[in-house]
């Protein structure tokens, strides 16, 4: 991040610094060690991209070509499968459901978790430490563990096969509260005290001082909540049977295969499900990278 990736001409006069090139600055960096390291990185990147390339290539083949002898470049390049996936079937529907569910989850989590984290970090109330302990205990429960009882709970609330049934159980993440709690604690108290002396109430302090200062943390939490929710398979799989209500991951795993496997369509559907987040990543790469570091290191 600190080194601009402008193509610099090789200047062999600079002495090599094989393992800590950043000490030397961005100039004259095409040392033999750098060239070797870059080749290794490129090779590994190719290996990591190969499955995606294969999926893309498959999606551009005809169904018969996909199951004849394997090869990378499609002979009759065709968008047939993409068209079939977009026009027929439920995929556009699932896509919309995914958008609705993940956007709702993200906003509810941001609102609820930031309020709770601020409450824990800055306010006093009876039972605060007990509730904090309860929240920490929740870090050990996941939908994978709670699946069956969570389902019966949602069932008794009458929310099976509804949007709310998909959305609300994803909206109480103890981990996000914890991350924001740590962050709010690290903010200097003096700012808030000064605002209080000037007559601001606690809600106003929260909305006009604390939240604007917390943009990096909030965007990290928001981005991760969105990714987790968009990719969530287990919970929507449990709580929906109605194909019209399914989300992308759920639909392509359960329904799309049910009518016989057409590999190009399966790959086109998969790429379509993954595309939005890849696009988001390309545009918000540095925020996401910082977000991972931030959220990860908060758990340290």
């Amino acid at each position, binding site marked *: 991040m600190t080194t601009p990736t402008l193509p610099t001409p090789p200047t062999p006069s600079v002495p090599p610094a*094989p*393992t*800590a*090139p950043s*000490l030397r600055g961005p100039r004259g960096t095409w040392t033999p060690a*750098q060239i070797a*390291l*870059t080749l*290794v*990185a490129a090779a*590994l990147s190719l290996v*990591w991209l*190969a*499955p*995606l390339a*294969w999926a893309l290539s498959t999606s551009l083949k005809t169904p018969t070509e996909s*199951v004849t002898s*394997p*090869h990378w470049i499609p002979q009759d390049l065709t968008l047939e499968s993409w068209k079939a996936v977009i026009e027929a079937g439920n995929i556009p529907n699932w896509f919309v459901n995914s958008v609705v569910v993940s956007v709702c989850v993200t906003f509810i989590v941001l*609102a609820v978790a930031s*309020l709770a984290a601020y*409450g824990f970090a*800055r306010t006093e*109330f*009876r039972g*605060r430490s007990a*509730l904090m302990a309860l929240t920490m205990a*929740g*870090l*050990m*429960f996941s939908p994978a563990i*709670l*699946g*069956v*009882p969570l389902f*019966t*709970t949602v069932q008794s609330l009458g929310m099976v096969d509804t949007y709310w049934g998909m959305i*609300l159980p994803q*909206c*109480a993440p*103890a981990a996000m509260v914890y991350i924001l709690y740590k962050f709010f604690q690290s903010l200097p108290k003096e700012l808030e005290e000064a605002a209080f*002396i000037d007559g601001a109430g606690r809600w106003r302090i929260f909305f006009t001082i604390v939240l604007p200062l917390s943009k990096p943390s909030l965007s990290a939490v928001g981005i991760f909540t969105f990714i987790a929710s968009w*990719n969530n398979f*287990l919970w929507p799989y449990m709580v929906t049977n109605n194909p019209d209500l399914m989300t992308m*991951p*759920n639909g*392509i*795993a359960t329904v799309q295969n049910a009518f016989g496997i057409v590999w190009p369509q399966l*790959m086109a*559907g*998969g*790429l379509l*499900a993954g595309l939005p987040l*890849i696009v*988001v990543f390309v545009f918000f790469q540095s925020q*996401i*990278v910082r977000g991972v*570091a931030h959220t*990860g*290191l908060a758990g340290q």
Partner: protein
Amino acid sequence: MSTLAHARTLPPRTAVAADSARARWSRRFQHGGWFVAPFFVLYGLFVVLPVVRGLYLSFTDANISGDHTGFVGLDNYREALKDDLVWDSLWHSVQFTLYVVPVIVVVALLMALIAHHTVHFKWLWRLCFFAPFLLPSAVIGNLWWWLFQPTNGMVNHVLGLDTPWLTQKSTAMLAVVVATLWWTVGFSFLLYLAALQNIPHHLYEAAELDGANAFQRMLHITVPNLRNITGLVLALQVLASLQVFDQAVVMYQFGPGPEESTRTFVQYTLEQGFTSYRVGYASAISFILFIIVAAVALGRMWLLRNREEVATR
């Protein structure tokens, strides 16, 4: 302010005002419960209630519709201990964890070292290594189901083999491990990359001045500075891997895999709950998984605390 008369006395007026304001500030925040209330409504409904309910159900013979519920005491737990499929599926999840965690840690660290030390195209390596993490687990399952096809799959095409990866017991779990490594290593990679970037430069500069070579700098500066992050990566990976479900189940079309060799623990609880409709029994075995996961999490906390105590001694 009615205390103007005292303004001339020490301590100075501003300090007094700030002090009383501070007191009022903390008093006004006595009712901070409103801040946490919305979270706890959701948390209570969708975490606390299911936990309590699950614990209760685990002592009953409840079915999916919730009627005909009878209290059966510890019968479910007793049955679980004698149920071969509980042990088999638990072993599969543990086996998966034992395979995947070390590989992820090593590959993530290697990737981070490579991406950190290359000067050019850092963004490109980051994009390539992290991109698969953004795909939904269901897509991972479908994708690798296709890639591992014996005659038309990419894996055999590239390696020049004709191994039936997904239909023989010896490679079935390996296939899930490979898919999972490809999918999730990017997250740990980013954690390592961030940790590497956090190591202060002056340490390397000082070591270089003292004549340490690249290998010595790596051994005495990089490795010790990555100890904490390695602990974190290990803990996160073990906890996630023990709860493996999505990718395995999609790769094997919701079945148990060849010779039932990839049925994971979570899969078995869901089969009991939603296929056999035995909600009581499913809840009981869920709590067995919870105990294991909690033991790992608490064990890590205990280790961390011990290390802190040692460090402050």
